[in-house]
C-alpha cells in the first residue's frame, strides 16, 4: 500500500533542552501507507522526535508537517489524524476493554452506532469475548498491548505512532502484534514505529537509524544490509550504534 504521497515531512527539526541537543536538525519524509521503522539506541533522541511529531513537544527550530498539518500551528488538527501508543501501557486499567473502546471512540468523535460496531468487531478480532467485561488490569500484557494498538487506531487515523509497542512481550504475541500492524498498513494507515528488536526492523519498509540526535542512515533493510555487508539487521545496528557518544538512559 506504499505510495509516494508524503504524510510526514521534517526539515532540520531540532529540540534543545538547555545545552543538550536531543534531536539535531533531523530531516526525513515518510510516505503514506508505509511501515517506517524509527531505530536508535536508548537516548538517541527517538522519543523526543516522536513527541514533537505528535504535538506533545514544541520544537526549538526546524519545520515539520504531519498529515499535511504544521506542527507549530495545527496541533489540534494533527491530533485528530494520528493515533499513538506508547511503551508505557496507556489504557485505563480500571475500566473494561469495552469501556476503554467506548471512551477513546467517543473522544475521537465516533457516533454511538460506530462505537458499538467497532467494539463488537474489535473484541471478536482480538479474541477477547470472554474478557470484554473484565477490568483491563487482569489481562495478560500481550493482550493489553494488542488492545491498546486497536484502540489507538479506532478512528482510522492517517498515521499511527508506536513507541516500542512490543517491549516485554513474548515472541508469539509479538508476531500476532505485527499481524495487526500489517492489517492496519493494508488499510492505508501509515505506521511509524520505534523498536529495539532487530527482527522487527526487518518487517519495516524503510528504517531510519538515529545516533546521538542525528539520523545516520535511512533506507530499506535490504539496502542497509548490503551497504554494511551484514547478514542481519543486528549487525547493521551494532555497526552504527557503536560510534555513539551518549550513554544509554
Amino acid at each position, binding site marked *: 500500500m506504499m505510495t509516494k504521497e508524503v504524510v510526514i515531512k521534517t526539515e532540520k527539526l531540532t*529540540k534543545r*533542552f538547555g545545552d543538550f541537543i536531543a534531536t539535531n536538525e533531523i530531516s526525513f519524509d515518510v510516505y503514506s501507507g508505509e511501515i517506517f521503522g524509527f531505530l536508535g539506541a536508548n537516548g538517541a533522541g527517538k522519543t523526543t522526535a516522536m513527541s514533537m511529531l*505528535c*504535538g*506533545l*513537544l*514544541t520544537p526549538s527550530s526546524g519545520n515539520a508537517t504531519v498529515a499535511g498539518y504544521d506542527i507549530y500551528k495545527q*496541533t*489540534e488538527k494533527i*491530533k*485528530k489524524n*494520528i493515533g*499513538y501508543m*506508547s511503551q*508505557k*501501557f*496507556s*489504557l*485505563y*486499567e*480500571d*475500566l473494561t476493554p469495552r*469501556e476503554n473502546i*467506548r*471512551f*477513546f471512540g*467517543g*473522544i*475521537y*468523535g465516533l457516533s454511538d452506532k460506530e462505537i458499538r460496531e467497532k467494539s463488537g468487531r474489535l473484541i471478536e478480532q482480538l479474541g477477547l469475548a470472554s474478557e470484554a467485561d473484565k*477490568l483491563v488490569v487482569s489481562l495478560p500484557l500481550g493482550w493489553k498491548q494488542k488492545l491498546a494498538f486497536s484502540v489507538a487506531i479506532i478512528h482510522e487515523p492517517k498515521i499511527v*505512532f508506536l513507541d516500542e509497542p512490543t517491549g516485554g512481550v513474548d515472541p508469539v504475541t509479538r508476531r500476532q502484534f505485527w499481524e495487526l500492524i500489517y492489517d492496519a498498513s493494508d488499510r492505508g494507515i501509515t505506521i511509524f514505529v520505534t523498536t529495539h528488536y532487530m527482527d522487527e526492523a526487518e518487517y519495516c519498509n524503510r528504517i531510519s537509524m538515529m545516533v546521538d540526535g542525528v539520523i545516520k542512515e535511512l533506507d530499506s533493510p535490504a539496502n542497509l544490509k548490503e551497504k554494511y555487508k551484514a547478514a542481519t539487521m543486528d549487525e547493521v545496528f551494532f555497526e552504527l550504534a557503536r560510534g555513539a557518544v551518549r550513554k544509554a538512559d
Partner: protein
Amino acid sequence: MRTLRFLLQKEFRQIFRNTTILRMIIAVPIIQLLILPLAADFEIKNINVAVVDQDNSSFSKKLIEKISASNYFHITSWSSSFEKTYPLFENDKADLILEIPAHFERDLVRENHQQLFMAVNAINGTKALVGSSYLTGIIRDFNGDLRMQYVQQTANAQIVPIEISSVNWYNPLMNYRFFMVPGILVVLVTMVGSYMCALNIVKEKEVGTIEQINVTPIKKHQFILGKLIPFWLIGNFVFSVGLWVIARFVYGIIPLGSIGLLYAFLAVYLVALLGIGLLVSTYSSTQQQAMSLAFFLMMIFMLMSGLFTPVDSMPEWAKWIARANPVTYFIEVVRMVILKGSGFKDISKHFLVMAGFAVFFNSWAVINYRKRSG
C-alpha cells in the same frame, strides 16, 4: 459537549469502581462527624486539685467541699504540707495546688481579711487558664456566702450583692457541638475538594494515561472540567450527608438560615477549592508528592481557619494568613447561617472574597497546567 460527556462517564466509572474512594466519600464524613465533635470539647472538666490545708478548720472544710461539689474539680490529695504535695505537680497528678494557710478561719473572722495561694500547672495553657478562673470563681462565691452570713449575723447593714445574669445568644445551652459540627462539615468538604481531586489527576500522570489523553483531540478545558465536575458533585454530596443526616439526626442541628444560601456558598467554595486541588496536581508528578503537598496545605488551612481557635484572638500576622485562607470564610458562613440565621446581606462580602479565590486559584492552575510542555 460530547467529549465532556465521555470524560464524565469515564470518571464516574473509575470513581465508583474504586472502593477506597467510595469509603472515603461515605464513611469518612460520618465517622468524623460522629467522633470529632464529641471528643473535641473545650469545656474543661476533671481538673485535678491538690489541697494543702494548714488550717483544718470548719471554714477550710467548707471551701473544699464547695470545690469538690462543682463538677469541674477532682480533689486528688489533701494534706497539710506543701512539700509533700509538690511532687504531685511534677508527676502531673495535679493541675492546681490550693494552699489554705494556717489560721485561715481565725484571721478571716477577726481581721476580715485572708489570703489563699494557688499554684497552676500551665503546661496545658487552656486547662490552666480555665481551671484557675473556675477556682477563683468558686472562692469568690464562697467569700460572698461568708460575708452574707457574717453581715446578717451582725445585722449592721443590708448589703445587696449585685447579681449578674447572662444569656447566651445563638447557642443558648453553650453546647460546644453546635459550634464544632458546622466547622467539621467544612473540613470534610475541604478534604474532598483538595485531596481527592489532586490525587485523581496526578494518578493519570503517574500511570501514564495522561500522555495518551494529550495526543487525543481532547482540549485542556474539557479535561479539566471532566475532572472538576465529578468532585464538585461529590463535595455537594458529602456536605448534604453531613447536614441532613448527621447534623440533623445526631446533633439536632437545624439551620436557622436559608439552606439555599448555604448551598449557593458551597457551590462557589467548591470551585475555589477544586482550583487548589488542580494547582497541587500541576506541581506534582507523583501521587506521593501531591499527597505531601495537599497535606501541608490542609494543616495550615485547618489550623488557621478559626475552626478550633477564634481568628480574632490570633496575632496580627496570623490574622492575615487566616484572611488569605478560603476555609476561614466558609467556616464563618456556615456558622453564621446555621446558628445565627444570617442572610445574604450579612455574608455578601464572604461571597465576593470566595469568588475572588475561585478565579485566582483556577487561573493560576490553568496557566500552570500545560497540555504541551516545553
